[in-house]
């Protein structure tokens, strides 16, 4: 049990990479969902497995509505992805240490080659953003040609989740290092943020007060971090009703 004062104390620490999502300008077009699936080699589970609730998405658009029919009022769409918690509930429960916290990037990692598929992490995730490979899903030719070579193709029995496009982080860092400079804010972004036609998703360094993501967060001023009361220290901030 985490005491409130502990939460307050640790909430002052910020992560490294973070995201702000403006729900008011999100149109719910699902471009981020498609872009994420393309970028990260996410399998398409098909109709039958989707019926079993085995859909695999690293980001999904949640929609809620208020009131009873016929006076239904839609609330803004809510893109939900791994919140890259600073104090993640998925991490301590993994018996194989397959989901670990990256000290270098301050992200929650999923190490596919260590994962033995207990699915404990997914059961313990309050955001329900982890996806499990229930089968080796087929990619009929020529679909395998669109696989991203920078991302592992996961096999059956492995848990997976949003990585904040760590392959893009590494690519940008590698490029910056080869040119002898630091990574510039806005040099790269995640697949979901890149695909968003409304620019509702902004990704960047939350520990840098000058980065776009910090500026957007300050301009809005009233961001919400989901289930923050659990002490998970999420790195994704949502804006609604601004």
């Amino acid at each position, binding site marked *: 049990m985490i005491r409130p004062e502990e939460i307050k104390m640790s909430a002052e620490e910020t992560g490294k990479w973070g995201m702000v999502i403006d729900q008011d300008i999100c149109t719910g077009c699902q471009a981020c969902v498609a872009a994420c699936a393309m970028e990260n080699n996410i399998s398409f589970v098909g109709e039958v497995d989707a019926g079993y609730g085995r859909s695999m998405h690293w980001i999904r658009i949640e929609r809620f509505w208020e009131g009873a029919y016929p006076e239904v009022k839609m609330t803004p769409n809510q893109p939900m992805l791994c919140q890259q918690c600073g104090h993640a509930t998925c991490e301590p429960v993994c018996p194989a240490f397959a989901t*670990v916290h*990256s*000290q*270098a*990037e301050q*992200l929650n*990692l999923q*190490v*596919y*080659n*260590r994962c033995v598929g207990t699915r404990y992490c997914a059961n313990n995730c309050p955001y329900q953003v982890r996806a499990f490979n229930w089968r080796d899903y087929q990619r009929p030719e020529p679909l395998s040609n669109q696989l991203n070579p*920078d*991302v*592992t*193709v996961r096999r059956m029995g492995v848990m997976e989740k949003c*990585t904040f496009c*760590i*392959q893009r982080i*590494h690519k940008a860092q*590698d490029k910056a*290092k*080869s040119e002898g400079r630091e990574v510039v804010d806005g040099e790269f972004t995640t697949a979901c943020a890149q695909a968003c036609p409304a620019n509702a998703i902004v990704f960047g360094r939350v520990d840098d007060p000058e980065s776009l993501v910090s500026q957007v967060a300050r301009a809005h001023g009233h961001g919400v971090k989901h289930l923050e009361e659990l002490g998970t220290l999420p790195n994704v901030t949502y804006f609604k009703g601004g």
Partner: protein
Amino acid sequence: MIKRLFDWLKQPLGLIAVGITFLALFSLAAYGISLTQKPPEQPLQFPHRTHVAFGIQCLYCHPGASKGPAAGIPSQAKCWGCHNQIQKTQTSELLKPLKDAVLSGTPLEWVPVAQVPDFVQFNHRAHVAAGQNCENCHGDMTKVTIAENPQVMNMGWCLDCHKTIAGEDHEKLVKLVDCGTCHY
């Protein structure tokens, strides 16, 4: 039933049978392990040592190593750049596959020797930029025909080097032993 089997095995003929079975299994296992230690069959017996002896740099044929993740295996066009000016190419039996491939326009299908599994994201550039020479991992190419791996390329081997290089530098160590540096 089992007791009769044991009794039969204890007599001289039985002992010989046990010995032969053991030897057969042992040699089979040894053969299996030896198969994994051999470099794979290549379309052409490419002599690394000859090329190195001519003073050709590694990066001439594998230029990707200093630029990006993959070092790259040269296409036959690169081979032909030099070899079409070499008289021996026309006559040599060993070079016939190259000549045939170029003339017929079918690519030479080299088999990569130094490979990492799909779940490992390896980047040559970072290693070359950090001052590692090719032979530190790939062995001395002046001694081999087809490239061979001088050691098993596994995670323990990677981490041994990463830890030695990071030394007392904590920030470097955190980056170099982080799971997310190679696995994503």
